[in-house]
């Protein structure tokens, strides 16, 4: 199924049961999501029926205490892991129903992922890292790439390798790589967790701008109430449920 070929009209007409105020089409819809892990011989229910919608252009902070299931929810949405029950729809693609290859294709073409550890490809230069995902997805846009380089302030760093960059610079490259494909949804797991406060503010400001520029949805896992407050909406996960 070619899920990104959904006409804009269909997106606009997508259901909006949680009554999100943006009026934009829903890009992510999560229903009754459950996930259980086995730990030390015991079943631990990490997610116990999560419901969540994110509209295009909407910026959402996901907060919660350690072990509340924030990262697990993000991984399930990204198709990195399989849910035990429930439904995840990205536009109208059923993530849970996709095969491993289908989920990989989905991540490649329609998702942007940013992690706390940056997770850049160490053997590639900044330039190659930035263009890597968009080029393997066949969605490389030279003008957009140049704009990203400019907006992220990476012009002087293109020939460098990840280890030669500071944490803030590495995270800007990771954000650039994730947005280069113009994804439907940008997922970020504690993107500023390894950065100092000023750098964190700077990186998040850039991310907000670029998300607005692309019109994609943005879901960010964070522990920081201060950073969460800078986004459009904040949802709190507690004991496996949206509080």
């Amino acid at each position: 199924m070619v899920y990104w070929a959904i006409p804009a009209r269909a997106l606009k007409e997508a259901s909006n049961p949680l009554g999100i105020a943006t009026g934009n089409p829903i890009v992510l819809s999560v229903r009754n999501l459950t996930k259980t892990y086995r730990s030390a011989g015991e079943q631990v229910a990490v997610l116990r029926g999560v419901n969540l919608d994110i509209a295009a252009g909407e910026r959402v902070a996901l907060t919660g205490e350690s072990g509340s299931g924030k990262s697990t929810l993000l991984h399930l949405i990204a198709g990195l892991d399989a849910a035990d029950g429930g439904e995840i729809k990205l536009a109208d693609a059923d993530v849970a129903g996709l095969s491993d290859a289908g989920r990989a294709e989905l991540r490649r073409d329609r998702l942007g992922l940013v992690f706390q550890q940056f997770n850049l490809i160490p053997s590639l230069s900044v330039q190659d890292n930035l263009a890597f995902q968009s080029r393997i997805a066949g969605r490389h846009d030279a003008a957009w790439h140049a704009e990203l380089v400019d907006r992220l302030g990476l012009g002087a760093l293109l020939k460098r390798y990840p280890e030669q960059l500071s944490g803030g610079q590495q995270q800007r490259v990771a954000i650039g790589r994730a947005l280069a494909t113009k994804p439907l949804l940008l997922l970020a797991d504690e993107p500023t967790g390894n950065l100092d406060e000023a750098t964190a503010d700077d990186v998040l400001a850039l991310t907000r701008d670029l998300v607005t520029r692309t019109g994609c949805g943005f879901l960010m896992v964070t522990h920081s109430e201060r950073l969460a407050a800078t986004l459009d909406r904040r949802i709190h996960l507690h004991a496996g449920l949206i509080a």
Partner: protein
Amino acid sequence: MQLATLLIGLVSATALWSGVQALNAQARISYDRAAATFGGARTAMLVGRDDTSFPQALFVDLRRAGWPVSPVLEGRIQIGGRSFRLLGIEPVTLPGEVGNAPTVGRSGLQSFVTPPGEMLVAPEVLADLNLQEGARPSTSSGTLLPPLRVQPQLAPGVLVVDIGIAQQLMNMPDQVSRLLIGKAKGPRAALEAVAGDRLRLVEPDAESDLERLTDSFHLNLTAFGLLSFVVGLFIVNSAIGLAFEQRRPMLRTLRACGVSARMLNAVLVIELVALALIAGIIGLVCGYVIAASLLPDVAASLRGLYGAQIPGQLTLRGEWWIAGLAISVLGALAAAAASLTKAARLPVLVAAQPQAWQQAQQRWLMVQSAVALAVFASAGFLLLYGDSLVSGFAVLAALLLAAALLLPAILERVLSLGQRSARRPLAVWFWADSRQQLSGLSLALMALLLALAVNVGVGTMVESFSRTFVGWLDGRLAADVYVNAKDDAQATAIKAWLRGRAEVDAILPGGRADAQFRGAPIEILGLPDHTTYSEHWPLLESSANPWVRLRPGDATLISEQLSRRLKLGIGDRIEVPTPGGNWPLEIVGVYADYGNPKGQIAVNYAALTRRFPGIPATRFGLQVAPPKIPALLSALREKFDLGDRSLADQATMKAESKRIFNRTFAVTAALNTFTLGVAGIALLTSLLTLSNSRLPQLAPLWAIGITRRRLAAIELTKTLSVALITALLALPLGLAVAWCLIAVVNVKAFGWRLPFHVFPQQLLELLGVAMAASLLAALLPVLKLARMQPASLIKIFADER
């Protein structure tokens, strides 16, 4: 995982090294036994000026002049068609320090010297002759020998009798071959004053003739053992390197908690030594098993190539066990040196920087390449100016070392070119990541290069030898049937009977005599004047009409090894000592004589019997039309009760020769396989250890949409690509090794040079084996990746790691 890898590496290294050392030690025990037989090269002695025998009266004169000498007469006799070395000794004067001689001579002095005397033999001789102790065999000429008595210290193939009996048996009354010199107890007259210029003094040599002859073989075994040891250490190095990388955070924490670098290193060394001792014990047991299983082939090789007798039972000394454990511990410490140094200098706060490391590695590669070029240059220098077996092996070692050192730089250059020419993002990553992975794989790839090159080199040499040998055998085994009668009387009877058989076209008499020539024993082969020889006998070079020139008995053909050793060529004149005086001969041809440890010359048969009237005439060949051979063989067997040892047709002789040839190289083939196997394990362990540390590099690619299966396929392609480049580089290197073995080492070791051939099919097969080994090595880590649970990959992104 690292523990298993570490143990596998140490066990492989110790096992092959110790196995080879056990084989060498076993052979050395046998050489010692041979050398100790009544004054081999390890005893000072007086010999005739021109290596001929001399009158016994000189012995009496020297004893009277205060020289503690003892006479020995040496020659060969045939029993039941088999040739033995006969030593006549004088037990009363035999010096005490001459090997185990006194116990031999004095224990039964009375029975040894009084008629009929005794003939001392090794247990192997009794088994060979299928006789019991006390039996009295006859020589091929019908002379009754003294009763046999077993003397376990004696070398196989040697018969020891009182010198008086030896003089009778060899028809050399009052003659002596040499005088062994004992420790002087008082003043003695000058040698010249007693013996004039008839005798010369030969100083003792620490190394026996057999040891010198077999040096190349043992050097070859040692080289294989060393190669496997080094490859094993590559595995250890890779395992320890990874274990260190994985422990780095823990080590950092310990350092941060106040543990000193010295304490940390001490604990790491203690842990390593304990593991090395455990692995050493396992390795030694494996080494013993390897040595025991290879010993029959090694014994066959040494017998086939040098005539050395090695018993088939492995006896090991305590030193072997201690040396094996020591080599395991030292090897482990050497392989861990780099990691231990890193641990000692570990900066507490610095994180891993693979790219910076790669740049540092590139600078190091430049240095390594410069060293490689210098080693290449030294190989060239040794090739041009070296003139010994050791220099030949040094050329080989330098060639292999230089190529191994240069390999990472060549691979880096090839991968870098690939990266520059790549356009697609995955291709760019493929080359870039291969370059980054190279540092972790280079040791294993170096091991693969060395193992493959040695395989190609030895394989090409053996195949060249095999083809040459088969062609040479076709010419050399010119007669259709070979007869070896048990004595002269039977030979005469057989020949008389054969003259009445219509199917026998010709009877080709043959004979052999032994002589000393320029300080070394040689064989003199008598060839009949018959077209069978002039048409088939292969000559490497000759003057015009060599076979015609042999007829008068003043010309000779000379074996290649004797020609090379004494630098003799066509037209040179030599003088061979015979019982009737020196025999002047002109060299009219040089022939190949593969596999013969002794120098040999070939003369006209009639001339040989004139110069050596006492030689047995028990061996001869027959010319028979091939369809009539089986019937003739049956008739001969029935009529004269001839066994398989006494009668053989050409096809059987060829098959037997080829069987011996193949067995001779069986040990080489086994070691080749072992080395390649260890290189495969090195590659596997490197890949397995790398696969663990590579997850952080692969997980982001999976996260951005490349499936695990595709990632696994890319990883497999990467490994196979570098293995293929390595294997392709190993082919020319292997051919250079083969050339070196054929043109340098063999010439020095054996005295013959083979034609150099390239066997494309063999090269393709080895390439296939290398790729299959690499595929096998890569398969496990790749399957692990393809089947990896997403949870394992997600862990890479988890914040709370």
